[in-house]
């Protein structure tokens, strides 16, 4: 036992000395808060999906430009449509080394699973980095060239003959599909898949008839001339480049209510100090203004939309109310 305790003693002694040394160094700097250990970058979706790829892209930008003194470690907690991540954030109240990359399940999951007892207004909003958009997509071989053709084709095929692919029920794709069906008085079969990329592939393989994919999920097939967008679920003039050339539903005279976004924001647990929040806000501001991020937004048809602080919180609350209505809760 002797040897063991001496080694343990000397180890703790060494750690103690090192600790003392850095406390002194820390006091010398003693201005803004800086992370003391790697930051847990929780992603409220599984590996390989759109949200995951985006979060890892953000981590890549931070890593490439050494924006943070300690690395971000992506952790997927996609269980229960993000319920797992939200509960984790709740448990980590006041922890300065955890942040969460969110998507719309940030509001839909607490709405659909009230048992969780999640109140998103308790979390600390950091930054909204973009709003992802949705388009209505069909295969080029379908011969459909406009929303009008589309509605006619769906009506002719009927519920049984028309398959719309999307992610799980109650997820974004199904809400958009619901909007579409209500607006045009059409009915179709909604087939849920595991992720947007898979949905895109199923359209190209002609296993489904249409999708409401995000631009990033379909752009490769669009460029290759396999799929085409019929209309964007955005207000007119919000998208640039080739994405801007897609008509919006409002352009086509279907009113201004056919709009739906996927927000891409970062939040932190509640109860963190102001200087911690400021550190993250400035970190993500650097990400937001980087040329990589701006280039990505343009190429992948996302709408830039920097928001932070109280405005972001107000946005979350408004969106939550909107989704409560969409979900009929």
């Amino acid at each position: 036992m002797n040897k063991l305790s001496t080694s343990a003693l000397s180890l703790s002694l060494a750690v103690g000395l090192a600790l003392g040394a850095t406390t002194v160094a820390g006091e010398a700097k003693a201005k803004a808060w800086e992370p003391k250990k790697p930051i847990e970058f929780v992603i409220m979706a599984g590996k390989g999906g759109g949200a995951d790829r985006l979060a890892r892209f953000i981590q890549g930008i931070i890593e490439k430009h050494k924006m943070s003194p300690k690395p971000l470690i992506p952790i997927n907690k996609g269980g229960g449509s993000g319920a797992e991540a939200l509960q984790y954030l709740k448990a980590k109240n006041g922890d300065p080394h955890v942040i969460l990359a969110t998507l719309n399940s940030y509001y839909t999951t607490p709405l659909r699973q009230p048992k969780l007892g999640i109140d998103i207004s308790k979390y600390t909003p950091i930054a909204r980095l973009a709003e992802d958009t949705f388009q209505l997509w069909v295969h080029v071989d379908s011969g459909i060239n406009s929303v009008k053709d589309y509605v006619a084709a769906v009506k002719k095929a009927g519920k049984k003959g028309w398959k719309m692919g999307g992610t799980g029920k109650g997820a974004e794709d199904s809400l958009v599909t619901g909007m579409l069906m209500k607006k045009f008085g059409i009915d179709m079969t909604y087939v849920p898949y595991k992720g947007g990329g898979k949905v895109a592939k199923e359209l190209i393989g002609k296993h489904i008839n249409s999708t409401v994919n995000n631009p990033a999920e379909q752009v490769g097939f669009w460029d290759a001339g396999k799929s085409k967008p019929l209309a964007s679920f955005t207000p007119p003039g919000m998208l640039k480049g080739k994405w801007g050339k897609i008509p919006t539903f409002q352009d086509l005279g279907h009113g201004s209510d056919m709009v739906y976004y996927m927000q891409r924001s970062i939040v932190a647990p509640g109860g963190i100090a102001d200087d911690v929040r400021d550190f993250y806000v400035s970190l993500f501001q650097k990400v937001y203004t980087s040329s990589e991020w701006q280039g990505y937004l343009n190429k992948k048809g996302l709408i830039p939309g920097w928001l932070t602080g109280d405005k972001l919180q107000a946005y979350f609350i408004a969106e939550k109310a909107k989704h409560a209505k969409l979900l009929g809760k």
Partner: protein
Amino acid sequence: MEILGHLADGFLISFEPLNLALVIFGAMVGLFIGAMPGLGSVNGVAILLPMTFLVPPTSAIIFLGAIYYGAMYGGAISSIMLGIPGASTAVATTFDGRPLALKGQADKALVAAATASFVGGTISVILFTAFAPPLAEVALAFGPPEEFALMMLAFATFIGLGGDDIPKTFFSIFIGLVLSAVGLDVVSGEPRLIFMDLPGFLHGVNFLVLAIGIYGIGEMLWTVETSRGNVSMSKATVSAKRVMAALRELVGTWKTMLMGSFLGYFVGILPAAGATPGSLMAYGVAKSIAKDPSTYGKGNVDGVVAPEAANNAASTGSMLPMLTLGIPGSPTTAILLGGMVIWGLEPGPLLFVDHKEFVWGLIASLYSANLFSLLINIAFIPAFIAVLKLPFTILAPVIFALCVVGGYVPTLDMHDVWLMFIFGVVGYLMRKLDYPLAPAVLAIVLGPLAERSVRQSLIGSHGDITIFFQRPISGTIMVVAIILLVMPLYKIIRDRMKAGRDEGGAA
């Protein structure tokens, strides 16, 4: 001939000093990460992704491709040495690799695994080179009914893996499927089977947790009991002579290698499947066409060769839908896909046109990554053998420690460590009572795919179950699967009747 020209250009790229160094380094890193229980190619690629921003995209993908390959080779090492599959792709390798190691032939198993991996990898790269675009179309033709049919085929090929006690074998399959259903119901988006409302169940029961529990902790307890706590793990030796002898013996397994390579490759290119079903199916097929199926599971070299050839072939195969369609065929390729986005490349149908140097540089480097993984692997065999010679009372606590860390690392959640511990203890008790556990591990891997695809198919067909037989591809696969399922039953019945007659005759 155009392809050969591209390939020659690719080789020039892959032999640039930086790229060559990255291939060797990547293969080595991959080998070690793959050899750790709990860490597989997906971890290796994800973790080293940020490092690749320092080099051009072509070098970056070459590096990650080499890690991917190295890890596929490495996965076999922990399967054979410790009996713990390092990743789901290496489960089938434990079936015969572990018995070989226990017989003191770990070196033979390791050489077989490395060689088969090399053959599988090389054949699949050749197929990749020659037929990339047409095969991408095959992947597209696979919708939910075809995926379900494929899962049925996978189940059918390994139905024979269980023991003699039929109710216990089925129990094992069912419990694996139930565990696979824990977490989220994809179709309705509702959480389900959240036992005791513990939030840790929301992310489901990770395959690795069950595998490390059963094969790590359970196996250790088993070994402790059978050896009364203190014997050397196995009497393994290695020498150049033995390695050569092993290589000569492997020549006889060429048929199995070829079968595994082709099967693995074609299963690998299908977006849903990936390397795990590929390797399991290869094992099942090898066993069912073997002249001596009874020696499988007891240390048959063919049983190591088939899954190893298949899983490497499948990992090449799964790159195909990623590059050509932008659809990842496996979690690892999903991370690679993320990497390509960061480097500013658009995976998809135009990649082969717009970024020729990238695609062909990658393909050419896969040839060299294979070669280097093989050489490095064989060079390290003596070191791996040396580990086996440690006294068991040293090795066991180290393995327990590895299991605990390995169970924690994939999700960074202590919940999974506790779950792994429970699986280990319960699994050990069940194993003592003749419950076969391999079927449970396989079921947890394939369960989600099977359930999702059957429900998607039925939603699409409005509840009409004949959908699986109406479509040509899924219909064909289903019929093959049913034949495979019925064959062993027929055999059993025939044998019983024969035995009954013989008994009757004797009496």
